[in-house]
């Protein structure tokens, strides 16, 4: 067969292919062959992109549903690298291509096929480079605020002391899109692979001057007037309460006298003796609390309401490490699908927030493999959402947004040839490209962070960062899932970055995303889509 494969066709096919779990090491190949192309196929593919763009019709309908996906720390370079990594997996090829793989660059993550795109300016009121608290606050309230604070205005000082946690904060509360949706009679859900009390998911339902006040044990005094974040979730007052909650962070809901249901060596972290999981089922007679995949699978969306799924004491596992057994955890895609099928029962529609929360953590650790595989898991979740909405005939009524709260100092550098393993060393032909110091270097790197860890400091503590070059890089398997890329500036934890992040959108009001926008405009697009006053 001499079919010439158009990159666009290949990309679409790739995006629709369900990704199998990536191998522990993607190193089996240094180079992935490119699909067949020539000048005319490139020209035709580019022409088709424009032709497709001409067919775009603005969807001005009132949205019934909004699904708001966040890749925490998913900057543009992360999206690009994840796209290539996914494209270099054996399952992501055009069926007409009989070769063992694709070169990767032509692949597209599911949300990259969405028709509308904008850039988001992520600075906060007092930060050039922000953390997740003010960025998510901006996106779900429409108002920028200060570092470390959740859904309160910039006029409220950051909470630090016992006095701060007893302050009256009602004058500073910023209504969130989730609260407005509950008030409008819609169903709501929050899903994250981070602790469900972590900054990004919490900004949807909690108001606090300190993002770290996740349980009472995290607060500066006992009996604070401002409830901890876990309590705010369970005691949520808007509408009929949040209908679907899944993520990690079980220990913030359990007292420190109760042994964790999964880890016999761990206990809850609450000092106040309250078991918020039992309070959940007391508050919601139709509610359910699940801890593992078995419990997750047993949930029947048609009859279940007010679900609280807490799958780990702290954050859920990275996708690369996820236990897929009955005692393990659901994937982000599985949670997203279950959420939609649970929330869709409400004829007034729903608001659902879904976060891939651990992209950020893996980048902080300087470990690109886990950051990218969690980004691919987000892509899988978005693809699943689209498929489920199509099946339910609600895709055209649903605004889907995919964005990030902030970026990371993660780079794709050098001049690797087409198809070079994205986790590998920069090569030209079969030869390693050498830097001025005579050593090879990887395509992926960090501007700061812990750096390579082969000669990690010999203590079982936070390890001393290794700045600069890895003397043994030539022999290192940089595609191993535990490899840590080189970093220039030595820091114990790699940092966020201040450049813009992308917003991908489809559905009602999606066309309002255009150009370079302030991050808080995202809320206003959602509000417009729902036609909230």
């Amino acid at each position: 067969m001499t079919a010439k494969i158009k990159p666009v066709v290949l990309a679409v096919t790739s995006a629709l292919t369900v990704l199998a779990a990536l191998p522990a090491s993607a190193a089996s190949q240094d180079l992935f062959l490119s699909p067949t192309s020539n000048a005319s196929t490139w020209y035709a593919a580019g022409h088709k992109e424009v032709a497709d763009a001409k067919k775009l019709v603005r969807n001005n309908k009132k949205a019934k549903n909004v699904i708001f996906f966040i890749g925490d720390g998913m900057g543009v370079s992360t999206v690009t690298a994840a796209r290539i990594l996914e494209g270099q997996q054996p399952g992501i090829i055009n069926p007409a291509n009989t070769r063992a793989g694709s070169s990767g660059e032509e692949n597209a993550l599911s949300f990259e096929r969405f028709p509308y795109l904008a850039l988001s300016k992520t600075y906060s009121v007092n930060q050039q480079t922000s953390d997740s608290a003010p960025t998510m606050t901006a996106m779900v309230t429409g108002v920028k605020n200060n570092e470390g604070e959740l859904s309160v205005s910039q006029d409220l000082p950051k909470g630090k002391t016992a006095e701060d946690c007893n302050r009256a904060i009602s004058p500073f509360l910023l209504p969130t899109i989730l609260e407005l949706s509950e008030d409008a009679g819609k169903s709501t859900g929050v899903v994250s692979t981070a602790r469900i009390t972590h900054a990004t998911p919490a900004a949807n339902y909690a108001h606090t001057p300190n993002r770290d006040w996740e349980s009472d044990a995290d607060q500066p005094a006992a009996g604070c007037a401002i409830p901890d974040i876990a309590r705010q979730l369970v005691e949520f007052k808007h509408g009929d309460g949040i209908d679907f909650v899944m993520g990690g962070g079980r220990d913030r809901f359990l007292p420190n006298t109760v042994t964790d249901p999964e880890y016999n060596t761990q206990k809850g972290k609450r000092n106040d003796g309250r078991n918020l999981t039992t309070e959940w089922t007391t508050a919601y007679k139709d509610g359910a609390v699940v801890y593992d995949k078995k419990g997750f699978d047993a949930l029947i969306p048609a009859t279940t309401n007010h679900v609280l799924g807490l799958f780990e004491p702290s954050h859920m596992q990275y996708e690369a490490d996820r236990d897929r057994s009955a005692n393990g955890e659901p994937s982000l895609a599985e949670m997203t699908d279950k959420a939609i099928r649970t929330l869709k029962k409400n004829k007034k529609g729903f608001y659902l927030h879904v976060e891939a929360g651990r992209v950020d953590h893996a980048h902080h650790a300087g470990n690109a493999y886990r950051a990218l595989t969690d980004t691919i898991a987000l892509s899988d979740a978005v693809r699943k959402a689209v498929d489920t909405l199509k099946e339910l005939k609600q895709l055209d009524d649903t605004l889907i947004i995919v964005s990030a709260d902030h970026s990371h100092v993660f780079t794709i550098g050098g001049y690797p040839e087409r198809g070079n393993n994205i986790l590998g060393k920069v090569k030209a032909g079969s030869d390693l490209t050498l830097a001025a110091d005579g050593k090879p270097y990887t395509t992926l790197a960090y501007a700061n962070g812990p750096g390579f860890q082969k000669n990690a400091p010999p203590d079982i503590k936070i390890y001393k960062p290794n700045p600069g070059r890895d003397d043994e890089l030539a022999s290192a398997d940089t595609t191993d899932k535990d490899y840590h890329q080189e970093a220039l500036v030595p820091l114990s934890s790699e940092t966020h970055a201040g450049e813009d992040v992308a917003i991908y959108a489809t559905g009602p009001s999606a066309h309002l995303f255009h150009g370079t926008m302030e991050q808080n405009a995202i809320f206003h697009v959602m509000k417009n889509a729902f036609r909230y006053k």
Partner: protein
Amino acid sequence: MNREFPFLLRDLALVLVSLLTAGCALKMPHDSTKLDTMALGALSADDPMTCRYRKERVHGDPNLHSSWEFIREPQRTESYDGATRQGEIWERDTQGRLTLTHVFTDEKVALDYSTGDLKAAGRLPVWASVWSIVDPGLFGKALTLQGKTAKGGLVLETYAGQLAGVDTKIDWLPALKLPARIQKTSPTGTDSLSLEQCWPMAKAPRLPTPESQLNHYRHIDYSDLGDMETDPIVQKIVALSGGHAHGSAEPH
């Protein structure tokens, strides 16, 4: 090639140098043959116990030493460094998953590492290297048997070899599955960790840190450190942990 092997070497090197380089004060000589074999002989490896080691660093004057205590139970170990006033609690659950809590006593902070955190940080050790301070799997491989001695019914095996390019000698107590002495010699000097005494838990001068005490510490997840750079306590514990190039990973 067995991919595990280099990691075993690294794990051991990490533990050894960790023990040998953190905080020290003034030097005293030590000799494994002076151990109280009667007291040690009354213990078996399976007994919960507390052991006190002496850590010495001889790299020019002044020579430094400090105490290092090790509490061992079947699925839990706890160490406490008398010089840095920091401790580490390792636990293994019924599924074999390891967790670490790094305890900063003066700051009343507990830094918690989940299994996933340890994997992502590339720092998940084999349990044997945690439970026995050194990984017995290295014996007969990177470290070869140099000889055996017996005193008071207590057998002492001596192993030697190079770990991560450093000459290493270990006096090993097979009955207790613990080292009596670890010595590492580099061009700049010698670091050693020497057993002084072990007690059954019931008679131990130091017991595991009670949960009630840890419950009143501020718990921070390792994976959250990246979002907490402006937190003064986090800045302090990162510095104490050698998180910055000028930090306390340098010899005390």
